[in-house]
């Protein structure tokens, strides 16, 4: 099953199990979403629970907040993460703060799914990775799976979570590969990172589409006798920093790989936290391999992305540092 199918399956499982779950967004109905993640849901669950909305991201998220306050479990889709900005006010000022400002009288259990990152030649406006903006604003949770199995389990976990979850789907992975994904119900709890590849010499932290690139890079330098531990964060916030801490305690070296621009990206936060927690274990400066601090260009997409050709030298440099 590829990631698109796995996500579709997760939605089906939850919609069958819990009739409070509704799906809304642009083109999620008849079309089944521009990436087909919601294909067939309209036919199975009907117009009340699978809703094609007018073209307004603020509307999609703002209405979902109202539904969540009422007691539904809305799952909104934004067509691309680049279009999260029209909904930022609702996310940051309403969803993120509703529980807090009501002293816990109201909760806001909603999921906002959105395809993120590069990999489809989407240029400036179909490639962005805005995760750090949502992390910075307290009250939101942020998830980003790297493979079909995790995608299904995490989406189910996100839907059952009592708080608002931004669920970023790496569109480069959507149909890139298939893997065994169990039928039916299983859940991966949020805030648990996974060791995607065990190793001893360097810790590489990543998420989403860059996990595969990281593993490929790790395997490549394995031939040179370097053993890289790749940690797939899976949930970005609240982050499972203990998994990273434990790994760095072992390796003493840290590389972080993400697609978003470097400046104030989530990589910086991990560097800062690791410095705060295990400074004396660090034998080399933590290194970030990221998107450049520019908009996301169209033609030179592969020069923009932190793909294996850029990860390998970063790993070698970090390994050799002394």
């Amino acid at each position, binding site marked *: 099953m590829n990631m698109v199918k796995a996500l579709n399956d997760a939605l089906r499982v939850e919609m069958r199990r819990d009739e409070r779950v509704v799906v809304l967004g642009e083109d999620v109905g008849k079309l089944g979403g521009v990436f087909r993640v919601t294909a067939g849901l309209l036919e199975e669950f009907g117009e009340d629970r699978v809703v094609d909305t007018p073209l307004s991201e603020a509307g999609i998220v*703002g209405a979902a907040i109202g539904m969540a306050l009422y007691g539904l479990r809305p799952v909104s889709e934004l067509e691309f993460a680049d279009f999260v900005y029209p909904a930022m006010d609702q996310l940051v000022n309403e969803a993120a703060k509703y529980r807090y400002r009501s*002293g816990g*009288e*109201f909760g806001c259990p909603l999921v906002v799914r959105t395809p993120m990152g590069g990999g489809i030649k989407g240029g400036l406006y179909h490639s962005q990775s805005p995760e750090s903006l949502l992390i910075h604003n307290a009250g939101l949770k942020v998830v980003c799976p790297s493979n079909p199995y995790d995608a299904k389990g995490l989406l189910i976990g996100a839907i059952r979570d009592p708080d608002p979850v931004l669920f970023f789907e790496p569109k480069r992975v959507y149909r890139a590969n298939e893997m065994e994904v169990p039928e039916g119900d299983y859940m991966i709890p949020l805030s648990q990172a996974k060791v995607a590849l065990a190793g001893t010499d360097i810790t590489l932290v990543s998420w989403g589409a860059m996990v595969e690139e990281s593993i490929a890079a790790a395997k490549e330098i394995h031939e040179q006798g370097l053993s890289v531990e790749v940690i797939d964060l899976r949930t970005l916030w609240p982050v499972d920093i203990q998994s990273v801490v434990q790994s760095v305690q072992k390796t003493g070296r840290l590389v972080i790989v993400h697609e978003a621009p470097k400046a104030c990206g989530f990589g910086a936060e991990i560097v800062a936290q690791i410095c705060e927690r295990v400074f004396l274990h660090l034998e080399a400066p933590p290194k970030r391999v990221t998107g450049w601090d520019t908009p996301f260009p169209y033609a030179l997409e592969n020069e923009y992305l932190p793909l294996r050709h850029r990860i390998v030298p970063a790993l070698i440099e970090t390994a050799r540092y002394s």
Partner: protein
Amino acid sequence: MDLQQNYSTTTLRSAAKGGVMKVIDLDGRVDPTTDPRLEVALVTRIYREMVRARLIDERMNALQRQGRVGFHVGAYGEEASIIASAAALRPQDWLFSCYREIGAAFWRGFELQSYLDNMFGNANDIAEGRQMPDHITARRNHFAAVSSVIGTQIINAVGFSWAAKIRKEDVVTAVYFGDGATSAADFHSGMNFAGVFKTPTVFLLRNNGWAISIPASRQSACRRLVDKALGYGVPALCCDGNDALATYATVQRAVSSAAEGKGPMLVELQTYRLGAHTTSDDPTRYRNESEVERERKYDPIRRLRLYLENLEVWSQQEDEKLIEKIHAELQAAIARAENAPRPAVASIFEKVYRDQPAHLREQQAECERGPRAR
């Protein structure tokens, strides 16, 4: 008498097709053709709440001047538009509001003590002092948590009412917002979604003529604010929001229509902000005192009192008793709120999420362990 003339030329006044619904004139006499013939007990209750709202405002302004509360946003002159509209909802219905409609929460049973605990931001406050004054939460009273951000509650209310429709539950959701909010993005998406999905939403556009220093005439070039509804396929009504009976009747019509499954309705409540925008504002910088003087004639409380006196169901004496009672209640609630402890430091770190995550546990410990602010 041309309504346009009654109001400032600087403010945009709307008139729905068939005009502006009015019942009581300036002397408290009713127009028999529009009179909704409400029960005296109901009207008296509305009147009492309107008086209470005004006295609370006066008291809060005073407390703010004395530096005892940090801020207040009042509803001086807008009491009918707020309380008579809330009165037209059914018990199971819900209200979303902006910051100026505390009176509507009181109507629904929100306790004065809770209000003052919010005003003082003390440990007893429902939100444990997290929010500014006048930013209340009253879930038990079917009243959503107030945000300061203009307009956001509109689309939230639409989603809320839409959920009730999906769940086939007989709940209408009303949402208050000001003339300024009609320019915000969430008015646009809210009205549009409500129109498309025929949600049981009542949009209560409390047009008080001003958005801080911006007159409604500069907020939009439309002839009448209700004209905006047409672009969303949402029917609209308009009433004199300083006329409690007209307000009640008009909002009730919208509520019934929504409850019957006929979808949303926009109701413009034409009123006027007699006071400052908030205690931080100085309206003399941008509007003429003469305009305000002119508007005082339409004071909703005076008009409703004259109506009740004309019916001989209310007297000067009762008014005095009422005022005294409210003052006493206020006195007691203020004393309790002012003497309550500050919120615990833990309140900063709790209820960000349902379950406290590790990083907030750490930060709370750090804060509790460290020195306190001076």
